[in-house]
């Protein structure tokens, strides 16, 4: 046991937590902003799949990771705006739009992959894993000076560019939501669309911005998956991270900081699972750990919220009695 703990308390382990959390954090930010605008986008999973595929393909054909990344972002945003069109203009239930995008994101990406690359390895498996070489991956950044710090340096330095962006975006999103007029409008639309529109805010426009933002974040997340986390796209590679992000949003109480912490919890769970399987635990038992942690986390969050509400109520009752 002590042995195992020693193995955990290494810079590599903490490094892997941060690395694993990054795509979840991107998706969580997406979930947070749309939730603030008053709806829930469950299509994050599908959006990330499409972005992952397009990122890896374009970077291969253009021979540049930057163009690939941009393509992933563009695809993410365009797909999310299309979702918005169906949800806001044609009034399809947003949940159903999300499910449709997820269905397309699962088999549809495989279809596109096969058609574009003309690969047909075997019957079902086709991937772009051979396409992304080291040079086409999103570069890792060694931070000067920081990497010299013992222990911490090994944790914080040397991550992919997108990992740093994820945490930067966490801060920026928080500022956007609480310090800018756009953020105010987004929150207003989420809390009371009628009131927002009565003071001249275009509810439709704000909703489009929110869902477009979620597409942008999924673009980053998808690109990270296929161009940094793994080298190349493969079927169902996002593996529920879009759904975990929805849970992280709920557990983080819809705030950026909380969302970030929840993402790190999931990152921890998965990193732990990987360590366990390295120690000989069946990988089929290690893999479901993050999903189980999601459910447990939701339950704990809900219990905490409930007891808070209870306390507040009783405090209010006491205050009322004291006032008498």
């Amino acid at each position: 046991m002590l042995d195992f703990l020693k193995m955990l308390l290494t810079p590599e382990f903490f490094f892997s937590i941060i690395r694993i959390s990054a795509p979840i954090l991107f998706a969580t930010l997406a979930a947070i902003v749309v939730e603030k605008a008053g709806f829930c986008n469950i299509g994050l999973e599908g959006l990330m799949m499409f972005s992952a595929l397009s990122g890896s393909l374009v970077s291969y054909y253009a021979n540049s990771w930057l163009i690939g990344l941009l393509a992933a972002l563009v695809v993410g945003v365009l797909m999310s705006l299309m979702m918005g069109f169906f949800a806001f203009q044609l009034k399809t239930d947003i949940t159903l739009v999300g499910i449709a995008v997820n269905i397309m994101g699962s088999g549809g990406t495989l279809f596109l992959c096969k058609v574009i690359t003309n690969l047909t390895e075997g019957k079902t498996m086709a991937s772009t894993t051979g396409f992304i070489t080291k040079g086409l991956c999103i570069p890792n950044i060694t931070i000067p000076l920081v990497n010299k710090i013992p222990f911490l340096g090994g944790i914080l330095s040397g991550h992919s560019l997108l990992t740093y962006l994820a945490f930067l975006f966490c801060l920026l999103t928080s500022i956007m939501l609480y310090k800018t007029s756009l953020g105010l409008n987004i929150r207003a639309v989420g809390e009371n669309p009628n009131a927002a529109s009565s003071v001249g805010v275009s509810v439709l426009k704000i909703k489009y911005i929110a869902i477009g933002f979620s597409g942008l974040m999924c673009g980053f997340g998808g690109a990270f998956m296929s161009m940094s986390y793994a080298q190349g796209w493969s079927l169902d590679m996002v593996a529920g991270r879009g759904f975990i992000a929805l849970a992280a949003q709920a557990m983080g109480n819809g705030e950026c900081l909380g969302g970030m912490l929840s993402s790190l919890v999931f990152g921890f769970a998965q990193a732990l699972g990987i360590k366990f399987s390295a120690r000989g635990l069946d990988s089929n038992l290690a893999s479901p750990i993050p999903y189980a942690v999601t459910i447990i986390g939701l339950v704990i969050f809900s219990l905490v919220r409930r007891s808070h509400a209870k306390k507040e109520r009783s405090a209010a009752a006491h205050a009322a009695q004291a006032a008498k």
Partner: protein
Amino acid sequence: MTKKREIIFSLVRGLLAICIALFVAMLLIFISSEGAGFGEKLRATGAALKQLLIAPLFRTGRSGVSFDVKRLTDVLASMIPIIFTGLSVCIMFSANQFNLGAEGGIMLGAFTTAMVAIYVPMGAVIHPIVAVLAGGAAVAVLMLLPALLKTKLDVSEMVCSLMLNYIVMYVIKFLMNTYLADKTKGQIQSYEFLQSAKIAQLVDNGSKLSVGFLVALVVVVICGLFMFNTRWGYTIRMIGLNQDFSRYSGMKVAGVIVLSQVLGGFLAGMGGGIEMLGRYNTFSWSALPGYGWTGITIAILAGNNPWLVPLASFFLAYLTKGCELMATYANVPAQLLDIVQGVIFLFFAAEQFLSRYRQKLVVKSAQEELAGKEGAKHA
């Protein structure tokens, strides 16, 4: 608006949604088809479309088009699991519960049924029945988790059920790999089902159209009656329409929400079990089969109405078969199905799709009504 016009409107709308999806499919096939020039590509597209649209039921050859019984039974056989998941999703979505656990449910049901079929010897007729019911019961119990968490703690049933899908898949894979696999075989599969557990085939031509198909139709009838002719069904639909109203009018909302998901889980589990015993000899699924997602599409196409589920299932089974044939004979990847499904899904569920046409119909009906009244007055 008159009832007749309402029906015509939904028909037109549905057909148009399907046409749009097929048009998208055509575009994609055209892009993916091989050929040098425009004309050649067009010809390839035509050939692929023929496979997609006609081939599931008809064999086309030199001698013209002929009906193919084997292909029909293939399509009917592949309807079995998706009728069950379709019904399952219908019931859960009717209560406005976006429980997406049918996917994991059908796998757990199949697994449980398979285990009973292998390890619990029983009499011939009773064995498959007990095995399938056990499969259903296992999933019903599983669905208690998202349902109770939703009603007691307000945890999103959607996220919870999605997570459960993954957990179910991995745990089953673990059990198979470590304890239950037949080690003499090359791939991971269980031992063979006992002979007594197998579900009899309706037609003996290899398309695996089993008695399960009849069971599925019976279950459709039961679900239809349940949803539209019982108090429980009415309550489920009412809660789906307006939860607050239902609560104020004294319905036991929490209980019914749990009931709808448990029932949905039971149906999905049964579907998995029947599919297992009717089609296979051993359990060898190593990934989620996808029937749960198809079930959602079916529920959308059927408008959450159990009576329409067989029709929607037939349509999707037909498309699936078409896509498979297209992949074999026209070299178009079968996953085109997912894109077509998604597009149909989007337009079908779009409330405002063709709303102007609908508006016109409403106005027309109103004018006619007014004219009728005027006429009656003058007379």
